């Protein structure tokens, strides 16, 4: 235990002395959360919406007023088909709501197809969001007694994130990416440095056991990761209002499980490479990229081809994001995310077994 303590002490000194790297790994999560929260948002505000009212009834006037009063839309009245075409083409409006003639009467008679929504789908994400917003406003204008479906073909109900705030979705994905970056890259680089400078040879000859070296390398980055988790959570809660509806304890428990899986990846990389540069290359290209692209942070997993969906399953990030959205947004019972948690645990164990087997006490 004395050996282990002194080794961990040395590792903390390495990190503490390298102030630049320390600053990066502490500040990076803050910057990323702010970037994703403020800039890379697909939320809509002040979308210019064209409305063409062919009904001119009290009901249709009322509906238009609702759009006027909504903070999401800037309403512009349109009167002819060419005008609609023009506005959409010139990009001055993103969507057109066309209230068909006799809409109010048809509605009372229970007929469907009284309103048409035209969307500029050149950005499908925004188009989809606008559709949801429009449907929500529409729904409030329809008589309660009648099922909403009778007026509009689809009225999706958005739970958990009614306003479709992308920062809600980004926070779990961001945590996955940032923790993977810090844990996997820093441990693999740090172990590769011992090999590169030759100090690993001195450590091997010492009475240190392999687990002293391996776990000793993991502990400091685990500590930094916990600081990062706290910062990301606090920042997203206080600045962006991202809730944690489920148990905070479970939230930290599964975050730490994910951190261990990321550390194991770093460990495995370090058993393969000999230099810091290659360790960094592999962690960036081989881990960071798939984590960013395949975790669902940027592109939804269900939009991927089947083989890619299965491939994304070998990276813990995908499962971690799933667990976090269960805990943060839905407060689902634990049994709902036991499977992804089990998969992360399995990946971690496999990585650790391979890494330990590959950790060489002697070279051939």
């Amino acid at each position, binding site marked *: 235990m004395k050996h282990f303590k*002194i*080794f961990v002490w040395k590792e903390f*000194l390495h990190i503490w002395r390298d102030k630049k790297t320390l600053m990066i790994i502490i500040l990076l999560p803050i910057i990323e959360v702010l970037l994703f929260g403020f800039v890379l948002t697909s939320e809509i505000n002040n979308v210019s919406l064209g409305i063409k009212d062919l009904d001119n009834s009290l009901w249709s006037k009322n509906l238009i007023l609702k759009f006027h009063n909504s903070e999401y839309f800037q309403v512009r009245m349109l009167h002819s088909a060419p005008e609609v075409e023009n506005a959409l083409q010139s990009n001055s409006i993103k969507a057109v709501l066309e209230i068909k003639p006799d809409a109010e009467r048809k509605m009372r008679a229970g007929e469907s197809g009284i309103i048409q929504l035209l969307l500029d789908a050149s950005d499908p994400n925004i188009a989809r969001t606008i559709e949801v917003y429009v449907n929500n406003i529409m729904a409030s204008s329809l008589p309660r007694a009648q099922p909403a479906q009778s007026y509009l073909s689809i009225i999706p109900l958005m739970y958990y994130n009614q306003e479709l705030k992308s920062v809600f979705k980004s926070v779990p994905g961001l945590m996955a990416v940032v923790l993977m970056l810090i844990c996997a890259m820093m441990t693999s680089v740090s172990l590769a440095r011992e090999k590169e400078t030759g100090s690993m040879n*001195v450590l091997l000859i010492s009475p240190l056991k392999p687990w002293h070296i391996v776990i000793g390398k993991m502990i400091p980055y685990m500590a930094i990761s916990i600081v990062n988790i706290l910062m990301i959570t606090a920042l997203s809660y206080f600045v962006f209002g991202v809730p944690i509806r489920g148990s905070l304890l479970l939230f930290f428990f599964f975050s730490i499980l994910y951190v261990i899986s990321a550390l194991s990846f770093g460990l495995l990389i370090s058993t393969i490479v000999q230099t810091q540069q290659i360790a960094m290359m592999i962690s960036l290209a081989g881990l960071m990229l798939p984590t960013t692209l395949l975790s669902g942070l940027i592109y939804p997993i269900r939009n991927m081809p089947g083989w890619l969906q299965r491939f994304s399953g070998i990276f813990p990030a995908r499962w971690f994001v799933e667990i976090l959205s269960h805990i943060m947004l839905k407060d689902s019972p634990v049994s709902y995310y036991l499977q992804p948690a089990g998969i992360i645990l399995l990946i971690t164990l496999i990585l650790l077994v391979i890494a330990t087997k590959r950790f060489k006490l002697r070279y051939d």
Partner: protein
Amino acid sequence: MINSITARGISKSYAEQAALHKIDFAVQPSEIFGFIGADGAGKTTLFKILTTLLKTDTGTAEVCGYDLEQDFLAIRRIIGYMPGSFSLYGDLTVEENLKFFAQVFDSTLESNFELIRDIYILLEPFKKRRATDLSGGMKQKLALCCALIHRPQALFLDEPTTGVDPVSRQEFWQNLKAVSHQGITTLVSTPYMDEALQCDRVALIQSGKILQIDTPANIISSFPKALIILKTSGNKNLLINSLKEIPLAESVFSFGETIHITCEPADKPELISKIKQNQQNISFVDNPQPDIEDCFLYYMQRENG
């Protein structure tokens, strides 16, 4: 006397390329045993094998009574190793490096202080300095301190004086002698021929083969050839080329300012007169004595046929 380190027929190749070929030697307790050879001769590979880091292809060795294969973990506990490159932690201070290696090796700075006192006294003024900011000589002293801190039975120093200034090298050898007087067997490798004289015994090593093992004095005194040393005020390279044309001259090597020529002892007077006939602007060094480098080159030439 029981040998401290014995190697029998150690061979090692990397991807078909032989690095070591049937290495045999024995080192006695508290001896300073030097491996002298150029870069790429196989010194580092041999040291990695003897410190149990690298497996042999064939052959075996005993280090302080432990078998290299079966007891490699036991060997690790009783040796000190200083790799060729500076492999302490540059971002840690002198004091921190010492503390780390002392504790990792179940020791303290105080418990073996008399062993490292002479070296530590030189380091102490810099103890708060980061290791990376030390001079080359100070780095080597720190590394030696760290390798000695647990009072190993055998010390392996791989090219400890490479890249160190002459004064620090001299100090370093003084430190090593003091260490060996305390009963620690020391194996040291160096590419500097003149450092052979600092060792009790040396092995000349070239292309993975040991050419000769003996005390430096014996190696020099058993030099079987006659040596002629001369200087020139003219073009040295032209002179060397024309000297090589003379059939009696067995070898002609440039040694800095001078040229060393060897021949059979019986042929020496004839060779000297032939050189005098053909060359101007040359002067002979009186009573030339061979040094280790002459011996090394002789054995190397003999090995290559």
